């Protein structure tokens, strides 16, 4: 048997682990830009563009807001993202309960209405909403950005919450009612805590989508309201300051820390039980 000869052992190992090797390579492709962003946050570029490595420097890290308008745009993006998350999570949660818990005429239309925004390229949604604002003479600015962001976040909240509500055991609420809990009490003490993970997932997704959105925002922002992605877009034409990489790296590290921290505490709790 040729396959059993020791000379072919590495080959066999390779074949058995081909999936793992290919998977890790994909992961590398996925994470490479983040590594580059991190590395180049310590660069001291020669010109206005931070694309080629020159020398190590911590200048950008010690002065993250040293670029005109950048931190202002960051603040605007955070504001928009928080408000959009708040509204989209509330409206989306109501809708998810309606679609998951009730049977009613027009449910199919409701489902389609929720699904369609996710099946539409952003440029189409952005351009058509912009056309609405142009035709109705609504001034572009903070409010139009917020309206647009709530619009495209809604569907994702509905999907996240609906999945959770559908998987909840209805007997738990029945048990609460049998134990003489009123409708309000049942909802606050039983239904809401059970649905909370779905609502939290929807809220986090909304925040991430809103904070990072560029295409729809570009069609619905006035000339004077510049969100962070719009600032980066503008910088890509005029010259990218190193501080952009600092913000990108900081966001990355903070988010990874939050997620890993959450997982570690969840693991501990599971083990303690």
């Amino acid at each position, binding site marked *: 048997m040729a396959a059993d000869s020791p000379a072919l052992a590495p080959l066999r190992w390779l074949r058995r682990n081909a999936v793992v090797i290919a998977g890790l390579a994909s992961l590398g492709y996925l994470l490479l*830009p983040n590594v580059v962003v991190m590395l180049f946050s310590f660069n001291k570029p020669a010109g206005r563009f931070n694309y080629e490595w020159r020398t190590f420097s911590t200048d950008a890290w010690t002065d993250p807001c040293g670029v005109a308008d950048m931190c202002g745009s960051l603040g605007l993006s955070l504001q928009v993202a928080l408000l959009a998350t708040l509204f989209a999570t509330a409206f989306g949660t*109501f*809708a998810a309960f309606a679609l998951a818990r009730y049977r009613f005429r027009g449910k199919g239309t409701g489902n389609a209405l929720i699904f369609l925004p996710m099946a539409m390229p*952003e440029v189409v949604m952005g*351009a058509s909403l912009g056309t609405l604002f142009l035709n109705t003479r609504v001034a572009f600015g903070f409010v139009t950005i917020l309206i647009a962001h709530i619009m495209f976040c809604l*569907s994702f909240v509905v999907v996240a919450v609906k999945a959770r509500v559908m998987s909840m055991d209805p007997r738990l609420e029945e048990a609460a009612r049998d134990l003489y809990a009123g409708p*309000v009490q049942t909802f606050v003490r039983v239904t809401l805590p059970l649905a909370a993970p779905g609502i939290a997932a929807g809220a986090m997704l909304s925040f991430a989508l809103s904070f990072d959105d560029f*295409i729809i925002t570009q069609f619905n922002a006035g000339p004077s309201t510049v969100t962070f992605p719009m600032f980066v877009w503008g910088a890509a034409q005029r010259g990218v300051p190193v501080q952009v990489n600092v913000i990108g790296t900081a966001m990355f590290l903070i*988010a990874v820390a939050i997620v890993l921290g959450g997982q570690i505490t969840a693991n501990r709790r599971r083990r303690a039980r």
Partner: protein
Amino acid sequence: MTASTVPAAAGAAPPSQQPSPETGSSGDGQGPGPRRRLTPYWLLLPAGLWLAVFFVAPFFYQASTSVQSGSLEEGFRVTWDFTNYSDALATYGPHFLRSFLYAAVATLLCLLIGYPLAYMIAFRAGRWRSLLLVMVIAPFFTSFLIRTLAWKTILSDSGPVVGVLESLHILDFTSQLGLTGDDRLLATPLAVVCGLTYNFLPFMILPLYSSLERIDLSLHEAARDLYAKPTTTFRKVTFPLSLPGVVAGTLLTFIPASGDYINAQLLGSPNTQMIGNAIQKQFLNVLDYPTAAAMSFILMAIILIAVTVYMRKAGTEELV
């Protein structure tokens, strides 16, 4: 309670008071009658109205704009001028073609690159599974524009990738195929497709993973017991069972990729512009709203038709 929130919710739709959660549960009880029957409608009202006004209604405005003619100075008027459509197709036909071609190639690449990773996380990761899933979504934590700019560094003319590909004479080969030119990667179709693939890869991996993860491992064992080779097991068992994930992933990748203009703008050249670039330019720079509206309508129609046909063929309509 229901009665008190009714006028408020019906009056001023968007930013006003919504029926509170308690309202929902008050109808949640056993009490039959009109109250309970109306509950789902009140619950659906804020989201439904928001989407009706800011998602559906805009398409009617866009439809009317797309058959207008005139200029910015004199104003646009509805003249049922369908030449906007034929003009858009005549002028931007190549943009449409490029969009769908690049998006299709990027989707295929995402599937080829994403599948092994999703498979590995689902079946071979053991206790590393949740960490690997975090690593798949981790790129999202940095703004995607910044990450796309990072590809400018990676693919730059004096960068390592160009150097390696050049010394292996791969660039000569790809430029003969017309994918690259002048010994560079930036400003070529290859760079745009690479950027699109990168940007939408997680949208492929996550649905693939969730459908792979649901596969009962005893099915793999059964296939092995019946003397199926690993490749046969994959072809006859694993892959067919992961098809819902493949369908969802390809849709989630193809749709946004075909409308994208960021990768073409940042990594491409004027010769790699996609339809998104054209719409963006007409809408935001040229201010020729009728043409932009017509193009956006054509794009939407093509995608809706393609998605419907694809979902019929694939036979999965449980995506919502």
